[in-house]
């Protein structure tokens, strides 16, 4: 539990302990007590200010991770007959994984193929692609309970018609936030 607390929080905790020690240190005069009370107030205000800064930093970091993931898009493409993650797909996935470490979102991975070949084999190939993405995400520390996979095979193309420009668009896994 402790290791997940950012450094700022640890500092605050230590400051609070230190403040308590100072406040209970013994038989000082009223002046010293007054001084101690003022000091405690200052340190509490400092702690509150740091807390606000921490939350702002977290929000900023989250927003930046979301922006980074969004800039890669939520579609990962594949080579013909292949379920191997390309370097571009890995880049994109790394951004999504970093975000998934910081939020609690559940995702669905939808696997697709182009129209060539038989439909049932393509249904299985779509699943293999979705599983490849899932396995990489899980291997990088995201719980498999947060990931659902489904295959549409060749049944849900984004581009109709023959030819590489259409087929390339259809060989994909789509990440959908639940």
């Amino acid at each position, binding site marked *: 539990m402790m290791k997940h607390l950012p450094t700022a929080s640890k500092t605050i905790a230590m400051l609070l302990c230190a403040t308590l020690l100072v406040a209970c240190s013994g038989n000082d005069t009223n002046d010293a007590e007054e001084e101690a009370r003022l000091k405690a107030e200052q340190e509490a205000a400092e702690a509150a200010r740091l807390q606000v800064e921490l939350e702002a930093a977290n929000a900023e970091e989250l927003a930046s991770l979301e922006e980074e993931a969004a800039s890669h898009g939520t579609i990962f493409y594949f080579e013909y*007959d292949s379920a191997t993650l390309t370097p571009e797909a890995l880049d994109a996935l790394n951004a999504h994984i970093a975000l998934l470490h910081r939020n609690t979102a559940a995702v669905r991975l939808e696997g697709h193929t182009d*129209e*060539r*070949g*038989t*439909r*049932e*084999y393509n*249904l*299985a*190939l779509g*699943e*293999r692609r979705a599983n490849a993405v899932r396995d990489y995400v899980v291997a990088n520390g995201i719980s498999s309970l947060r990931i659902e*996979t*489904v*295959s*549409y*095979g060749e*049944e*849900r193309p984004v581009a*109709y*018609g*023959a030819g590489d420009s259409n087929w390339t668009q259809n060989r994909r896994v789509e990440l959908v936030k639940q």
Partner: protein
Amino acid sequence: MKRLHIFLFTVALSLMATTVRAELTIEITQGSDDPASIAVVPFAWQGSGAPPADVAEIVDGDLARSGQFAPVARVDMLGRPTAEADVFYRDWRAINAEYLLIGRVSGVNPVRVDYELYDVLRQTRILTGNQSGPASEVRMVAHRVADAVYEKLTGVPGAFATKLLYITVDRKDGGGLSRLTLSDSDGASPVVLLKSGEPLLTPTWSPDARHIAYVSSESGRPAIYRQELATGKRQQLTNFKGLNSSPAWSPDGRSMAMVLSKGGNPDIYVMDLASGQLKQLTRHYAIDTEPTWMPDGNAILFTSDRGGKPQIYRYDLRSGATDRVTFEGSYNARPRISQDGRSMVMVHRQEGRFHIALQDLVTNRVQILTQTDLDESPSIAPNGSMVLYATKQAGRGILAAVAVDGAAKFSLPARQGDVREPAWSPYLNR
């Protein structure tokens, strides 16, 4: 879940009689080299009121589609006999007809067809027969006449009195509405059995043609459903994690082969339909899919990419041994076997193009049957004469058929939208 099933059952029922948007048209693209010329004279209608159907036209169309017959055009007929007394062989020799079929339609309900077939050159009657049926099934009655004529002249039972299952998709619906449709073997009398906004795949027939099964993703992931044709009652057979797909009835009707990936990757299983018990046949990290049974029930052929690319393998149910069956080309998939167990049709890729090919399982000789590209889902007629399959024409999905010797061809585009995944029924009522 139950409410969803009731809703879908209602949807299915309410669509049982619709014929909109599922109609196929037929275009004959090629006949065989030496078709026999046959004159099918319009049959006499001996009842009152309008005749129930042009029976001769239905028989004519069946024989023409087989590619083995060249029917005589009605305008060329020198006479219109409907009884033996009116047959003058010289009229038919004059136009080089080899065979002559005449007949009479009578009765309102049931309707009855009497017919006689003549060998023009030998000047003798070679077949006499009759067929009856409910008036609502007059087209089927006509197809049975065509079956009898076909069998008499070729020695092979006809497969015209059969049904087709197929799936139509109309992209105008927003790219996602699929209709599972049942029609006659010539595409007539279409009936929508199921409409779904989620993918439908692999319609298949039970051996007694009373049930069908298919894959539907209506529940959120692919699952196998069985449906009774007479009542429309359906039952979800599987609900495992991952794929539940590619159903195939055993020849004795008691089991169903299927593909499940609940074990981590797609493998072939067999389910005992009475008990629901599952037996796992393949255990391989590769994709194993598209199982189909040998007619003797002793083996299952399936597609597997365990060798790197999809090829067809055979699992022997007695020994548990698996052997590779296809060795030509880098992609062979989706096997279907003829009733005599000798011929296998499949999807075969050559130079990047996907064709339907036939492999003789005894000699292992492979013959490519089609010149079309992006061919898929071959289905063999129950008499083994023709292969129906799906392909693309001008960007649209159509059905097409080719004779097993590659000679005759016809296509069945839908009037509207794409059509795919044909499944030819077994013989009916046998």
